[in-house]
Structures are given as C-alpha cells and as structure tokens.
C-alpha cells in the first residue's frame, strides 16, 4: 500500500488550556480530494494549521509527504504545501495582484526569468493574467481567491490546504473556483484537503468527505 501524502496519528492539540483536537487520525492518499466538514468550532481550521506546522501538537504526529511536521526535512520541503486561507485578505496598503502571487516564490531561490515565467504561468492557469497590475484591494472576493490559488501554484505544490475558500463567494465564483480545483487535481495530481461547511461544496461528487465534531472525526 503506497504511503499516504498526509498521515496523522493520534493528534491532540490544546489552545489556552482547552483541548481543540482529540486523538485525530487521518490518511489522505496522494492525488485525493478531501473535504473536512463540521460546525464552527469543530477544530477544522486548527487541523489545517497543525498540518502546516503553525500549531504545536500536545500528542501524536503528522507526516506530510513522508516528513514529520516540524522536522528539518519537512521545513526544507515546506514549499510543496500550498495554503489558501479562510477569507480573502483585507489589505489597506498598496500591493498589486502580481505581487501577491509573487509571494509564492519568496523562498524558492529562482532566477528572475524563472520567477517571471512561473508567476505568469500560475496567473494564466487560474485565469487571472489580466489582473497583474490591478491593486489587490480593489479585486472581488472571487478574484482574490483565484490569486491565492495562483500564489500556491507558484510553489508547484504537491499538497493544497484550503480553509473555507468559498465562504465569501457568490454562487458563480464558487462554481468557477470548484471547477478550477477539479482541473488542477486532475491535471497536476495535487492532493487537496479543504475545510468547508458550504452545502453546495459538500454536494460536489468527486470529493471524499470526513465530518468533524468537537475536535474529533465522527
């Protein structure tokens, strides 16, 4: 049996003295699309942050692409994990759409030409090439989420973690984003874990669904 892309064993996580995740175990095969659903406060976002290494586990372990989260080897390969956050970021300072995508190349050590090519390819892939010089603050929620995806694509990710990416989108933008994710999964084999309690998203046929409640999988 092939090694899963994400493997979580007996994960427990506390925040300010409260146990947020209780003995969570999970296997996500490479190329799989998984939705983690559940009510607010179930621990879905905390789970994603633990996979990203942003929160320290009280017990258990997490392996991503065969490396233990927090280890030196994992830190070196961290760029292979893309993260699309819960809401399109509200910024009140000048940053262009292209500069937001460019963040995905921040730690890759690419030459200027390679960086430019990768940014352009990523923006074309999500259908945002025309937005390059636009100010990020003036874009719609759907456009911002596409740019988040483009930022991740610059990293050439093997795993994509998405935290309620459709929560602030209208139905049309939501459908476009889900189509985009399906295409990326099928063409590039990117493993996807999405946190959502959006009924429309949960009805997507090709996604496997795991339900979380009170810090544990039901």
């Amino acid at each position, binding site marked *: 049996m092939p090694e899963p892309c994400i493997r979580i064993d007996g994960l427990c996580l506390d925040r300010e003295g409260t146990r947020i995740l209780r003995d969570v175990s999970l296997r996500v095969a490479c190329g799989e699309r998984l939705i983690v659903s559940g009510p607010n406060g179930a621990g879905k976002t905390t789970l994603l942050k633990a996979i990203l290494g942003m929160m320290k586990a009280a017990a258990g372990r997490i392996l991503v692409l065969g490396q233990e989260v927090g280890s030196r080897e994992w830190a070196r390969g*961290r760029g292979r994990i893309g993260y699309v*956050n819960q809401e399109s*970021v509200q910024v009140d*300072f000048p*940053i262009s759409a292209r*500069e937001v995508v*460019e*963040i995905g190349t*921040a*730690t890759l050590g690419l030459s200027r030409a390679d960086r430019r090519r990768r940014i352009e390819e990523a923006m074309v892939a999500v259908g945002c090439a025309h937005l390059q010089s636009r100010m990020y603050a003036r874009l719609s929620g759907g456009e911002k989420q596409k740019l988040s995806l483009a930022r991740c694509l610059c990293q050439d990710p093997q795993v994509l973690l998405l935290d309620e990416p459709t929560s602030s989108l209208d139905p049309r933008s939501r459908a476009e984003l889900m189509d985009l994710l399906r295409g990326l999964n099928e063409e590039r084999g990117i493993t996807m874990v999405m946190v959502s309690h959006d009924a429309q998203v949960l009805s997507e046929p090709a996604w496997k669904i795991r339900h979380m409640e009170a810090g544990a999988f039901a």
Partner: protein
Amino acid sequence: MNVVQALSYPPILRGFIALVLAGCFFPLAGVFILRLNLVTLRFTLMHAALLGAAVGLALHVDPLLVGLGLDLLAIAAISRVARESGLALGYVSTFFMVLTIGLAFAVIYKAGVPAKDAFGILWGSIYSLSRLDLALIAAYSAAIALFVTLGFRRVSAVLFHREIAAASGVREAALTSAILLFVGVAVALLMQLIGALLMDSILLLPAIVSSFRARSTRGFFLQACIIGAFCSITGFFTSFALDVPASSAVTVIAAGLLGVGLIYRRFSGRNA
C-alpha cells in the same frame, strides 16, 4: 551666510548629509510602521530613547548610544513578551511605553540630570551630529535599503499577511523581529537628528503620502523614499532661505505634501 558657505562648515555639511540620507531611506521604516500598525511601538521607543538619554547623561556616556541600546532592548522584550503571552503588540508596547517614561523621570530626578539636557532629545539638532552619529545614520540607511531590496518578496509577504508568509515558508517570526529592529533604530537615530517631536515628518508622513498614490508595494516603498528625499532636501534649503530651523522646515513641507495628498485622495476616490 549663503548655503554654499554654510556647507563648507563640517557640522552643517554633516547635518545636510544626514538629513538627505534620512529622507531617502528612513521612510522605508515608516512603511513598516504604517503597515504593521506600530504607532504605539513608536511612542514606546521614543520613551525608551528618552530614558537612554537620561541614563547616558547621568553616567556621562553618549546619550544616543545608550538610547539606541535601550531601544534594542525594548524591541527584544516587546517581541518576546508578545510572542509568549499571545497579547497584541499594541498592549505590550503600551506597558513598556508607560514603564520607560516612568523610569526616565525617576532617573532624571534621582541622578540630578538637568531636565533641559534630557529633554533636548525631544527636539534634536541636525547640526550637533558627531562623525559617529553620521556613520550610524549612513550604516542604517545602507542596511535598511539592502534589507528591503534583497528581501523584498519575503518582506512583502510578511507585510501582506503574516500567516500566509509563514505558510509559504517565510521565516515570519525572524523577519518580524528584524522589521521591529529597523523601526527601533530609526526612531533612536531620528530623535538625535530632528527630535522626537518632528520625527514623523521623515518617518511617517512620506509613507502616508505614498500610500495615497502607490499601486504596488514596490511603488509604495519607492515613492515614500522619493517624497522623504524631497522633503528633507527642500526643507534644508528652505530653512536657509527663511532663516528657520531645518527640522521645522522639513516638517512643514512634509505636512504640506500630506495636505496635497489628502486632497488628491479625496478627488481621485482612492480609499486604499
């Protein structure tokens, strides 16, 4: 005495060079303050520098160096306490702001430091800079320019969203500490150069005006530097023409530009 004659005097030449360097590069720290909402931290650093000046005068050590040292200590303490307590930077800064000003007054009283000397740091003087002061300003200018230029993508990631920066593999905590350090040193140096009361004319106002026009983060940084350079150079020459202190002239010009910027913003419909 005309400007050319005045510039033949080393203290005035040193002051001019320092003002130009500060105008060109210190607004980069102003961009950090604006974006990361470090205004409270700025006040804390001013108070720490005042405490440093009081301690320096009491011990007969260079007040600038002691102020700089205390600013660095305050930065280290604030970052550590904020990180470990999970409290917002503003709350932690407020605590240190009150503590340092309290200690400053205690030192001034107990050590018999003339208040006039200690508070001299509030208005600074560009013509009283030593060679060491100028060297520090030049070194800082080079350091912050290299930091922003070479680390632009990492820096802009942190300014954009710290969580996304961390998720993208950027060492966000280390970079945030470096940013706080640059802000701390800028405040300490500017207090000596133009004083605490006027430092915003070089540190913050160019960054604010730039934020009205810029459409990208690169443009934000670059325009802040250009506006800062314009304010400091025209301020210097205006001070000679009108026989007013250079720091006042720089401040009035920067405030005037901010007024123009606000009008531009009003009529261009820019909100961000």
